[in-house]
């Protein structure tokens, strides 16, 4: 099911005298989700991603704009008529019902022509349970399950009614690190095998990058950039996106362009053809540094961190916006600091320039 959002806006009323102006949680949000894709809504807390999800589910009504599922305009449809499956952040499993009863709960609501027999419901519940591999847990209560198992039950309950789209609100945030890794593969697998268009919300960029076909980066209710995860990472549209994506985070410097060359401090570190003379914000991915004795960019050496296959070089520079610059080089690369200084060459594709005031990308 293709999902289209057109100029979607959600405003919350102000709170009396103290805060009379309305607050827009989502502003003029236009986006199209192709059929069968897994889309990650990504952004920091309060960026409007959960509101967007609630608008999709119908639990909240937009102030303006329209939502289409396929060609149907569902903007005015209440949540129960939209046929969405929603997995809540805290799973919202009914604690007094068994896993089986939880999963069949949505089916028992069907009336009239769609009414199902007990046998049909049991079969469908078993099928959904099989999809998330919880057939052995059907007669337990949610309190007797681990977090990961509860998560699976919640997904099974959302899937059992064959939703037109599946919505997941921070699906992995309540799981520990190992389970998170495992569950995100699981979500990917389930989404692939059912082919249901899926939207999930997360503040964890790694999560979004790893399983999404497409990510939507949001900040303060506005879409910052959409695209394939790698493409957004490699080609950020603005400083916010560049900073938000990537671990370790991108290194940001105050720089300036003179004669089509980027200066950081007093050094010309990179030719930037086509950029007019101006002050810029320069951002360099950790993997964009090539240490070498003849490098153009000189930093004060602070130390090395060896983390498995990668080596991080920690250094600092007076123009950096963070106290520590972190660069990642593959193990075995010779990094020889001289007199406390280390020199780098920069990979052009890993250096992004942004307008000093607006944060908009300056492409070279």
């Amino acid at each position, binding site marked *: 099911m293709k999902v289209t959002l057109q100029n979607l806006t959600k405003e919350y009323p102000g709170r009396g005298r103290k805060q009379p102006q309305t607050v827009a949680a989502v502003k003029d949000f236009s986006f199209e989700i192709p059929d069968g894709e897994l889309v990650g809504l990504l952004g920091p807390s309060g960026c409007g991603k959960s509101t967007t999800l609630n608008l999709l589910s119908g*639990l909240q009504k937009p102030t303006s704009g329209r939502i289409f599922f396929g060609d149907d305009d569902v903007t005015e449809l209440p949540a129960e*008529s939209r046929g969405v499956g929603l997995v809540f952040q805290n799973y919202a499993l009914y604690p007094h019902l068994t896993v089986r009863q939880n999963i069949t709960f949505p089916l028992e609501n069907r009336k009239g022509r769609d009414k199902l027999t007990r046998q049909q419901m049991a079969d469908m519940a078993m099928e959904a349970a099989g999809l998330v591999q919880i057939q052995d847990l059907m007669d337990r209560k949610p309190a007797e399950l681990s977090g990961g198992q509860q998560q699976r039950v919640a997904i099974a309950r959302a899937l059992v009614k064959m939703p037109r789209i599946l919505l997941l609100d921070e699906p992995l945030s309540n799981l520990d690190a190992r389970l998170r890794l495992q569950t995100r593969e699981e979500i990917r697998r389930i989404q692939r095998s059912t082919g249901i268009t899926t939207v999930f919300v997360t503040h964890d960029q790694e999560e979004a990058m790893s399983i999404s076909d497409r990510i939507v980066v949001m900040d303060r209710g506005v879409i910052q950039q959409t695209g394939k995860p790698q493409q957004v990472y490699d080609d950020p549209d603005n400083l916010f996106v560049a900073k938000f994506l990537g671990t370790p985070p991108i290194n940001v410097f105050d720089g300036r362009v003179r004669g089509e060359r980027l200066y950081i401090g007093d050094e010309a570190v990179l030719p930037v053809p086509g950029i007019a003379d101006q002050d810029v914000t320069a951002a360099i991915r950790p993997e964009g540094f090539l240490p070498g004795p003849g490098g153009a960019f000189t930093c004060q050496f602070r130390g090395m961190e060896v983390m498995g296959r990668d080596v991080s070089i920690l250094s600092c520079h007076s123009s950096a916006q963070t106290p520590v610059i972190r660069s990642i080089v593959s193990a075995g690369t010779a990094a020889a600091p001289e007199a406390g200084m280390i020199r780098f060459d920069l990979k052009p594709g890993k250096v992004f320039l942004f307008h000093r005031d607006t944060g908009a990308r300056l492409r070279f």
Partner: protein
Amino acid sequence: MEQNNRKAWLYLLPAMLFLGVFLVYPLIDVCVYSLEEGYNFASQTYWGLGLYNYAYVLRDPYFLQALKNTFILVIITVPVSTGLALLISLGLSSIRRLQELYQTIYFLPYVTNTLAVGLVFMILFKQTPYTDGLVNQVLSWFGAGPIDFIDGPYWAKMLVLCVYTVWVVMPFKILILTGALASVDRTYYNAAKVDGTPGWRIFTRITLPMISPTVFYLVITGFIGAFKAYSDVVALFGTDLNAAGMNTIVGYIYDMLYGTSGGYPSYASAAAIVLFAIVLTITCVNLLVSKKHVHY
């Protein structure tokens, strides 16, 4: 270890003394009294031990009347007051505006003096030489004749007592239930809504099980409270309850001790033990039933 134990007992001593003197001793004493036959209040002597007191009480028509009254009161008021309180709390929790005002209004009877409430019920139901009472006035609009609710037929008196009891016990239940309803996580309702669950089903399958411990608590305390009804009956029908045919078990016990026909602590004790046995049985039945239907 030994030292610790002694210390612990020392700390428990004040409470144990207090409970012992005011709870355990009287309890045992009541049992003993109920078995002492022909106890004489003045000389503090008795003939012998036996079950005669129980036999007397259980054959006493006044006691049987009190038993019947109490049972009717319990069976009508506990479900009605709990059900009504549930309805009203549901209403209260689904409105936004004026919620606090209504909550206050519904809670007012709880903090109102019993005598004042009794007076209001007098005005509503009592027939005097000057007026038939408000309720009779309303009845007369529908062509129904004046009914003497206070001194008239048994069913009319019972009706007044039940209305009064329900009205008096409801505020507390509403307060507790609105609290319980407010503590149910909203996401359950959202989840149910996304799944297209109709309202009544949300109530029976989600809301009710979620607040079932509270409802259960109210039912148990409601039963116990109604079995102990006395002051309400006095407020409505005066102190000569046997004559009015509106006595309750507690009223009977009181009359046996201090009433005009009183001075029989043995009969009173036997009646008290019977009441205790009834309440215990009902509570046990409640607990058994709750195992299946209450979700903690």
